[in-house]
């Protein structure tokens, strides 16, 4: 479809050969690119962090790491409760939504590491459409899976509401959701990387710094927006009363 060739062709052309694309090596015929190795590194970081934060969980934490992560998780849970109606609802889907937030946040920030995009093996995963499309497809299936799980066969009734005439429009809407979700994340992070790259090509010292501060803000907002929209989609598909 749309994500297959043209975007990647332009990506490869704009990045140039040195921008860490192409395969580094291959396992069982599957090509492993810089994005994949960066993703492995990020997964490792998240696993180690959560292991050390929850190794000895206490009610009144002395472990500073546990304290910090608890604060982050509680703030995110509070925001999600506001969107999904109740804290009980938000807690039910928190394993999925929380993983989205933290994974997207650190993969956005990994593009700010020195040499990201230049040296092989390090490139922000969310700056490629294949990664963001994968995340959006997970949201797409999760939305309908949880909808059917909570409401049974009655879930499909909302496609012919308010009148059956609107069925095609409702179907299109369902497919536009993951498309815009993936394009928003990819476009923001990729555009940011391109601006940073051209600033660094102009004057390598100090000039990219203001843009990097902005990237810190944008990376957070994009991760937040992705999680909020996923929560909104899942929340509306599992809501008891449809308007």
């Amino acid at each position, binding site marked *: 479809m749309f994500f297959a060739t043209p975007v990647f062709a*332009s990506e490869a052309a*704009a990045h140039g050969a040195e921008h860490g694309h192409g395969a580094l090596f291959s396992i069982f015929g599957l090509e492993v690119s810089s994005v994949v190795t960066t993703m492995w590194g990020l997964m490792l970081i998240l696993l180690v962090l959560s292991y050390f934060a929850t190794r000895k969980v206490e009610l009144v934490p002395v472990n500073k790491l546990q304290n910090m992560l608890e604060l982050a998780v509680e703030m995110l849970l509070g925001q999600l409760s506001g969107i999904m109606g109740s804290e009980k609802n938000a807690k039910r889907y928190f394993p999925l939504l929380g993983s989205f937030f933290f994974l997207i946040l650190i993969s956005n920030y990994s593009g700010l590491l020195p040499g990201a995009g230049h040296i092989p093996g390090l490139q922000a995963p969310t700056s490629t459409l294949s990664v963001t499309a994968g995340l959006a497809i997970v949201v797409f299936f999760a939305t309908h899976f949880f909808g059917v799980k909570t409401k049974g066969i009655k879930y499909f009734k909302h496609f012919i509401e308010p009148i059956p005439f609107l069925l095609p429009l409702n179907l299109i809407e369902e497919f536009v959701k993951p498309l815009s979700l993936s394009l928003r994340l990819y476009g*923001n992070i990729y555009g940011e990387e391109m601006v940073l790259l051209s600033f660094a090509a102009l004057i390598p010292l100090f000039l990219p710094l203001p843009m990097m501060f902005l990237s810190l803000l944008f990376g957070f907002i994009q991760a937040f927006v992705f999680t*909020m*929209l996923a929560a909104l989609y899942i929340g509306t598909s599992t809501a008891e009363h449809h308007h």
Partner: protein
Amino acid sequence: MEGLIALGAALAIAIATIGPGLGQGNAAGKAMESIARQPEAAGEIRTSLILSLAFMEALTIYGLLIAFLLLGKF
């Protein structure tokens, strides 16, 4: 021909920023007004503001994508 492609790419992103820029400015201004009028509702207003900004942002991103696609044609 290449000049036309470059012009097309520049116009794609330039025009795509106008509408969402106006819309986002309007939404942010209205949100500020309502926060000033009702500071206790600031949290809820901020969340729905960010969500609606994200939907408008998507339109600009489509323009940016088209610009990148055109640049890939060089």
